[in-house]
């Protein structure tokens, strides 16, 4: 099994709930798509070309300040559980991890990661630069990825078109190659049934939403990933500014929805969040989805000060470590083991008990 302790913070620094507005926003992610000039894209290149891309980019990365000490994971040499583990940590996409329907890992598929920065290699594009920050931190996250882009850009020739900007395998990413996304928890809007209106509104202003794991993933535990839809025709600053303004607005709506719930249906809400807490505290078997939904209820309870004894960091930790590959790895069993729901419930009980104990 891979040793994620090699990473300074296990690659999950983003879940420490230290960032701005972390009661609503779990994490902020920035991704820049880049391709090497003069080379065929992933869909049409050969194994040896992908290997060469990996060597070239890694050599350049080792010469930078930001990725000099990067840990390298060759996804194409890891077993499925380890790949899923990296995916659950939001370090690699489903495609790179070979967890798509066909379940095949592309040769040369790799990840370089150092602190909050990483580069996926031989993904849909040759390079996918990424940065993951705790809480709502668009500017800080972008600044860091931008510095990495500059460092790598000085050492590699990127495919760039004077009119279209950075060229990408899919025209949806062309121009800036920037996808900024904010993972936000919106139970208030879901409970008040305002969420569809908000999501439709976001679509009208050029934003899109995805589930917990990004593209093609489902919405679980009322977590929505909000991001910019277009990448061309606006500067990076404008894209981030626009997304930031809209996210702030969604946060306001969410706070308002929570106030409405507390004002109009206090007993129902109180029952709902404590019921979620009770189930997590005492259930003997939990599916991943059920755990996510209950954690969402408790998170809401903590957010509106109904549940005093649980910290956001604990909830974030539970969110990550109750995922199938994480739980299976820590329990030493296979992710498909039928005992997993029982182990999950045990794990959640233990964490919540120690949390309450710690807080006296």
């Amino acid at each position, binding site marked *: 099994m891979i040793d994620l302790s090699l990473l300074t913070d296990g690659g999950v620094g983003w879940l420490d709930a230290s960032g701005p507005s972390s009661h609503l926003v779990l994490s902020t992610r920035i991704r820049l798509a880049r*391709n090497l*000039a*003069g*080379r*065929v*894209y*992933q*869909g*049409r290149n050969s194994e040896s070309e992908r290997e060469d891309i990996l060597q070239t980019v890694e050599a350049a990365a080792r010469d930078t300040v930001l990725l000099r000490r990067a840990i390298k994971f060759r996804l194409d040499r890891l077993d499925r559980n380890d790949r899923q583990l990296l995916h659950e940590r939001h370090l690699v996409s489903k495609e790179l991890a070979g967890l798509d*329907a066909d379940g095949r890992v592309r040769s040369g598929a790799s990840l370089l990661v150092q602190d909050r920065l990483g580069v996926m290699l031989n993904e*849909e594009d040759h390079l996918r630069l990424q940065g993951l920050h705790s809480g709502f931190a668009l500017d800080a996250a972008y600044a860091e990825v*931008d510095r990495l*882009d*500059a460092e790598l*850009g*000085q*050492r*590699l*020739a*990127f*495919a*760039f*078109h004077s*009119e*279209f*900007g*950075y*060229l990408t*395998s*899919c*025209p*949806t990413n*062309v*121009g*800036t190659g*920037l996808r900024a996304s904010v993972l936000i928890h919106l139970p208030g809007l*879901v*409970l008040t*049934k305002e*969420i*569809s209106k908000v999501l439709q509104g976001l679509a009208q202003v050029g934003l899109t939403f995805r*589930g917990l794991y990004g593209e*093609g993933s*489902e*919405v*679980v535990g*009322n977590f929505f990933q909000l991001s910019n839809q*277009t*990448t*061309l*025709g*606006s*500067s*990076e*600053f*404008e*894209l981030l500014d626009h997304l930031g303004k809209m996210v702030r607005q969604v946060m306001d709506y969410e706070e308002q929805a929570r106030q409405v719930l507390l004002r109009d249906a206090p007993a129902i809400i109180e029952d709902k969040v404590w019921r979620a807490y009770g189930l997590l505290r005492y259930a003997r078997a939990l599916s991943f989805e059920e755990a996510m*939904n209950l954690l969402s209820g408790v998170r809401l309870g903590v957010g509106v000060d109904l549940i005093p004894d649980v910290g956001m960091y604990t909830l974030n930790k539970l969110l990550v470590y109750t995922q199938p590959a994480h739980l299976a790895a820590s329990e030493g069993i296979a992710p498909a083991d039928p005992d997993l729901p029982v182990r999950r419930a045990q794990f959640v009980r233990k964490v919540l008990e120690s949390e309450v104990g710690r807080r006296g």
Partner: protein
Amino acid sequence: MSCEQCREREAVIHLTQIVNEQVTTLHLCELCAAEKGVESPGASPKTPLGTFLAAMGQELPEQTPVPRTGDNCPRCGGSLQDFRESGRLGCSECYRSFEVPLRDLLRRLHGSTHHLGERYAEGSGSFAPPDRPRATDLREQLRLAVETENFELAAELRDRLRVME
């Protein structure tokens, strides 16, 4: 992923809805989705770009004499047909090989074909500082927009310049 209804066919429609205050996603094949009254996006789109690509295919014969659908990019050998099926281009040269339909697609996807972000200076490998040269770029793009009588873009660029200056 197989359809949650019939468990036989591949799920192609992913319907996110709110049931009993929980957000759920249904994965359905086209037939089961139709039975449930969920509108199918049509048979052709296989990728998120499906609608655009399908539309692009329909317009190609009249609008673009070169390259024809069957033509291949000289660099990677990919064709527009490959792109329509996979949603991905084969290489950077494809942007030149299929410039006309792609320009149209970019306009529809992004509302623009003009990159206004950081510029990558090839060779020197360094970035142009984002502030002043950006205004220069905008002015150049404004001149081009006026020349080509793209007044909508021109107005947008003029506003941006005003904000910057």
